[in-house]
């Protein structure tokens, strides 16, 4: 019996294909909804997944024994740009003295105005600590390498190094070279080194200065955007986090659970970033789902029309021996196929779309963060899902077709 059923499904598959081919234009139009939806879902998920993978590999390079301390953000923006109570050098000293902390590095990340060859640009600058130990820690952690020139010496005020993209792309009008001079917030500085490509768009598109140099240029007080602490023992990291939190609370005079700062391990940072990405992907996929549902309604509509148009045909098939279940199967197969073919085209378009985004991102933004990833489960899932949507959308019309009385159906003109 199962072989008979298999054979029947095969026959009806051929029959359904014939029917769909016979109404080519309508079939294509019906599939559009499904195919746009599936294409959107596939490309969004693949890009989201790719981004998660990229972020994970970036952060795992950071090591797991790091603790990152930031002031709580009031708004979106680069770290420290809109905080009510920023971290300061005092906070840094408190952290440095905390039990279990081996060393502390600080960073500023600021928007700067760059004047170069009579043009003005707004870019980001980041800093290196003016402390040998902390600086080496950061260079090692972020795997910074100099491609051309040299790092700034400790205490050097008017020297900067630049991210790879400024040397490779005419971002500021032309490619920058070692020895080029430009001004940051009206203060002239000289490029002494070019950083090797890190693959991280933040680093590859950033100007690097010594911390005190940037402080002077921007006329900053002793605020700090990010403090990175290294735990002396990796296994104690959670405890060190608690110690830092407690010490900072005391120093900043805030109550527990009302902290105006965040202390996270790089591990936590990864997982919270992943959560954010997952949520963003889920929301976008949810929106794309609407298209699929609308596509499903389109299939239902098409199939109802098909049942009406082919009432006589249904009558004929019943007269020559088709059971209700045969008619049901034929129509379900047709709507399932509509969904599935829409899904196949959607998957192909989705892959093409996310690959295009990946290539554009790599070329235009120099970003390797946007990478498409296509796990087999995504492809197979998308195809099964589209077949299912088709079949479900076709269920009600198929039942209507199956229930037609042969004599009534035959007399239909």
């Amino acid at each position, binding site marked *: 019996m199962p072989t008979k059923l298999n054979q029947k499904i095969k026959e009806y598959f051929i029959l359904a294909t014939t029917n769909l081919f016979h109404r080519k234009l309508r079939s294509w139009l019906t599939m559009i909804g499904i195919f746009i939806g599936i294409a959107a879902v596939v490309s969004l998920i693949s890009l989201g997944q790719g981004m998660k993978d990229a972020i994970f590999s970036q952060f795992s390079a950071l090591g797991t024994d790091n603790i990152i301390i930031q002031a709580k953000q009031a708004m979106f923006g680069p770290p420290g740009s809109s905080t009510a109570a920023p971290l300061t050098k005092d906070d840094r000293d408190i952290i440095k003295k905390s039990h279990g902390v081996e060393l502390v590095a600080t960073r500023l990340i600021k928007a700067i105005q760059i004047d170069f060859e009579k043009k003005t640009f707004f870019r980001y600058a980041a800093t290196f600590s003016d402390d040998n130990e902390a600086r080496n820690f950061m260079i090692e952690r972020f795997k910074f390498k100099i491609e051309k020139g040299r790092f700034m010496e400790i205490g050097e005020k008017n020297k900067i190094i630049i991210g790879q993209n400024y040397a490779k792309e005419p971002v500021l009008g032309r490619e920058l070279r070692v020895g080029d001079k430009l001004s940051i917030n009206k203060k002239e500085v000289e490029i002494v080194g070019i950083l090797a490509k890190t693959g991280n768009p933040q680093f590859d598109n950033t100007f690097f200065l010594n911390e005190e140099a940037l402080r002077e240029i921007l006329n900053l007080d002793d605020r700090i955007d990010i403090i990175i602490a290294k735990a002396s023992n990796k296994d104690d990291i959670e405890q060190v986090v608690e110690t830092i939190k407690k010490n900072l609370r005391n120093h900043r005079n805030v109550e527990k659970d009302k902290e105006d700062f965040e202390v996270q391990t790089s591990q936590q940072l990864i997982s919270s970033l992943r959560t954010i990405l997952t949520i963003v992907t889920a929301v976008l996929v949810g929106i794309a789902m609407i298209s699929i549902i609308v596509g499903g309604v389109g299939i239902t509509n098409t199939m109802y029309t098909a049942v009406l148009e082919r009432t006589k045909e249904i009558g004929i098939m019943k*007269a020559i021996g088709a059971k209700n279940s045969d008619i049901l199967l034929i129509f379900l197969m047709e709507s399932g196929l509509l969904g599935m073919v829409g899904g196949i085209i959607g998957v192909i378009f989705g892959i093409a779309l996310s690959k295009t985004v990946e290539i554009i991102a790599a070329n235009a933004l120099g970003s390797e963060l946007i990478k498409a990833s296509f796990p087999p489960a995504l492809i197979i899932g998308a195809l099964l899902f589209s077949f299912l949507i088709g079949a479900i959308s076709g269920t009600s019309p198929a039942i209507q077709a199956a229930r037609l009385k042969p004599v009534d159906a*035959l007399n239909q003109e």
Partner: protein
Amino acid sequence: MSETIIELNNVWKTYFMGNNEVNALQGISLKVKKGEFVAIMGPSGSGKSTAMNMIGCLDAPSKGEVYLSGKDIMNMTESNLAQVRGRKIGFIFQKFNLINTLTAKENVILPMIFQNMTKEERELRAYELLKLVDLTDRMNHRPNELSGGQQQRVAIARSLAMNPEVILADEPTGNLDSKSGSTVISFLKKLHKEKGTTIVMVTHDEHIAHNAERIEYIKDGKIEKIKFNNKIT
């Protein structure tokens, strides 16, 4: 005495049109035996189409019994009935009723698919049947590429697909010119004569009806008279 294939016993069919009751059949009784060629004749509105639907198990009576090979069709489920219909009855319709999206051969094969015949068997049988109706050269044409006469011959081949016990022909020549019509009739006669196929033909055309061995005249939903035709050629 040969076995009875179809029996209508005091069959009534009542339709409700708004508040009006219309009795399309008013206690019709009829027996078709194996190997017979019966014509059912009557003017339009006489109830002959309704009678045809009853004989073909396409419709259920309001009152009375319909027996197919001795089994009461009222006791059968819809899918059982479909199965029986597919195996025991071959339909030929006035308007041919072929599936337009399928080729001549696929149309002949369709009933065999519903009966789970294997692919090899189907291909062979379809070829034989189309050969029987002289259409092997038109096998892969779709109905709209065939003349009316050719379409009706495809329909005859289809009706024979499952080697049915009876062929029901509803005005088989109604949509054909007289030449194609007589070809179709000659095929039916050939089937009856050479293979002993049982044929029930509904028509309003006295001339066509005279090809049958027996003519049942229907009027106002009842059999009015029966005429035996002994001079069939």
